[in-house]
């Protein structure tokens, strides 16, 4: 992926936001215990995460990162950060970087924001936060205890220089018209500019002005199967400018749910299977050039068969709900019990759990488990024959 390949390795390789960058350097240079944490605010893809890592490197800190995918509950935050904030000698010179703090909200983050604010108020190591926006309520209370540095979209003039430089290194070209459109479309977001350029140059989308007319997934899938000719279907396919993973999955769920006979279903799934293999290989080798063949595999799905309609989901509602609710509880029960029985979670739920439930059901076994598991055990017990 070019946007990773060209992630700046030095602060001096970065473009734009010079003042913000030098304020960050100054903050680090002057940092001492108690200095207010930094909050970097700005739109996506302009170098907030990048500079956090680079500054840490330059000033010799060990960066301890939390990001949106970490569970942001109070206990998790304390678990990860307590050793850092407490005894600092065992860990070298740590600093904390909380990426995408604006992601902390809603019911999933039990006490996460409060726990974080407590830490922010009394910083014993440098703390840097990054966020795209600062409007939510949670952000308002965070803003009170930090120093804010804003990042602005990168101006077109700088984008152009940067892009031409990358194109030169890749030995690639874009027509002048496309170049301007790419820069304009990216609205100051370097990452999306690089991604778009790469998709154009590698031929995932043919390099025509038309490829800027994009179609959404739903319309795309429906138009694809309704097309009157292969050419038309191909046009639709190329115009669906979405993430390749999403594209494959959309075809997959639409085909699965379209009530096809077993023969046709197998034929289509074989094609989807090959697309997935191609995509898997691309991901593993990071050989994005191969993406251009993906559409040529997917086009085989066009067989003048207008029975297929777009569907976002490929499972029945009851099963989707069971995955969402019961699945989560069974998973946490399994990982707890599996450990005690020296089994993997997968083995436990296959060859352990059913016996456990059976014995409980026959009132011959009582496990000392947290109450939270009571409900799921009841429910699963009922399902046993």
């Amino acid at each position, binding site marked *: 992926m070019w946007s990773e390949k060209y992630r700046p390795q030095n602060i001096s390789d970065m473009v734009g936001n010079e003042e913000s960058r030098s304020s960050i350097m100054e903050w680090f240079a002057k940092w001492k215990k108690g200095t207010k944490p930094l909050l970097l605010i700005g739109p996506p893809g302009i170098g907030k995460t990048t500079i956090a890592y680079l500054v840490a490197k330059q000033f010799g800190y060990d960066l301890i990162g939390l990001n949106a995918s970490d569970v942001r509950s109070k206990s998790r935050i304390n678990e990860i950060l307590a050793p850092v904030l407490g005894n600092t000698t065992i860990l070298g010179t740590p600093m904390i970087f909380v990426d995408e703090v604006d992601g902390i909200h809603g019911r999933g983050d039990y006490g996460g924001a409060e726990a974080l604010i407590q830490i922010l108020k009394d910083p014993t190591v440098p703390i840097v936060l990054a966020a795209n926006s600062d409007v939510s309520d949670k952000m308002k209370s965070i803003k009170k205890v930090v120093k804010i540095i804003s990042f602005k979209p990168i101006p077109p003039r700088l984008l152009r220089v940067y892009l031409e430089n990358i194109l030169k290194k890749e030995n690639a070209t874009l027509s002048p018209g496309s170049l301007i459109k790419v820069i304009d479309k990216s609205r100051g977001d370097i990452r999306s500019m690089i991604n778009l350029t790469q998709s154009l140059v590698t031929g995932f989308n043919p390099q025509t002005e038309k490829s800027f007319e994009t179609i959404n997934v739903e319309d795309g899938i429906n138009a694809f199967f309704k097309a009157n000719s292969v050419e038309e279907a191909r046009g639709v396919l190329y115009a669906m400018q979405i993430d390749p993973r999403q594209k494959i999955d959309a075809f997959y769920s639409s085909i699965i749910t379209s009530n096809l006979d077993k023969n046709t279903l197998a034929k289509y799934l074989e094609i989807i299977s090959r697309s997935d293999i191609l995509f898997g290989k691309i*991901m593993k080798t990071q050989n994005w050039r191969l993406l251009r063949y993906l559409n040529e595999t997917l086009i085989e799905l066009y067989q003048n068969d207008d029975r297929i309609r777009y569907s976002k989901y490929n499972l029945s509602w009851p099963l989707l709900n*069971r995955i969402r609710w019961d699945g989560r509880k069974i998973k946490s029960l399994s990982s707890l019990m599996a450990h005690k029985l020296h089994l993997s979670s997968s083995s436990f739920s*296959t060859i352990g759990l059913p016996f456990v439930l059976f014995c409980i059901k026959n009132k011959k076994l009582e496990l000392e488990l947290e109450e939270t598991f009571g409900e799921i055990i009841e429910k699963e017990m009922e399902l046993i024959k």
Partner: protein
Amino acid sequence: MLSTGMWVEKYRPQKLSEIVNQTEIIGSLEELIKNPADMPHLLFSGSAGVGKTTAALCLARQVLGENVKDYTLELNASDERGIGMVREKVKKFTRFAGMADAPFKLIILDEADEMTNDAQTALRRIIEDTAKFCRFILIANNISKIIDPIQSRCATFKFTSVPEEDVIARLAEITKKEKVKADKKGLKEIYDYSEGDLRHAINLLQATASLGEVSQENVKASAGLAKTSDVDLVLKMALDGKITDAREKMIELIKVYGMSESDFLKYLNSSVFKSKHEHLSKILEVIAKYDYRILVGANPEIQLSALLAELGNIE
């Protein structure tokens, strides 16, 4: 009698000498630990429920004594998301030295054959980097899935299925201690279902006992509890051309119950063997094809759905 835990754990041997069968292996392990400092890395292979993990845990206890908790790291490769997590955990575990009172720290890595070749190559590096303070016990069902450079660094022990008389003797011992009535036919029936897998045998024993006495009839009523029966069902529905039903059942196993894709394929394979289907070799060929596709592809669910659809068209 009301139990508060599973019998498999309650009756897990605590010393190497208590392990049933596997006598040669146990003898040689006991020999090896007489001089712990010289103990090589170990690789245990064999089918499920024959004492591999038990042997590793006993060995840990016997070598490390009261420090066993602090100096043993137990990992299960199929639970770790990628080799990176294994590396992190090993790193954390080895970071704090201070082991004047133990010959080494022990890392037990169960289901090591679930790791890809790339991950195993990285594991080799980890083994090398930590060799000064650590010993590994790797455990695998299928030793041919362990790459040569790793095999060559380990002393290898192949565990065999526990024979009928040993299984029955063990079960009888447990019924006596648990004060459960059991007859010969019942115990024999349990053995027949378990095929030398002592874990399965003991689980089935406990389930049967929860119905009352261990008779042939009660064993039959408790057999087929394991979710492997659901895999048999998926196979049957797929071969009957009921792809949608087969797929929903499979996804339930994987996404609700957390059965790993590779476990699913493992059970599917043995299900095929048991089925004695007339197109047995054709079926196995199709499964092998998708087993490979899962490895190279990006979304296992897609590959497994395509597998079921293809099975539905075999004739």
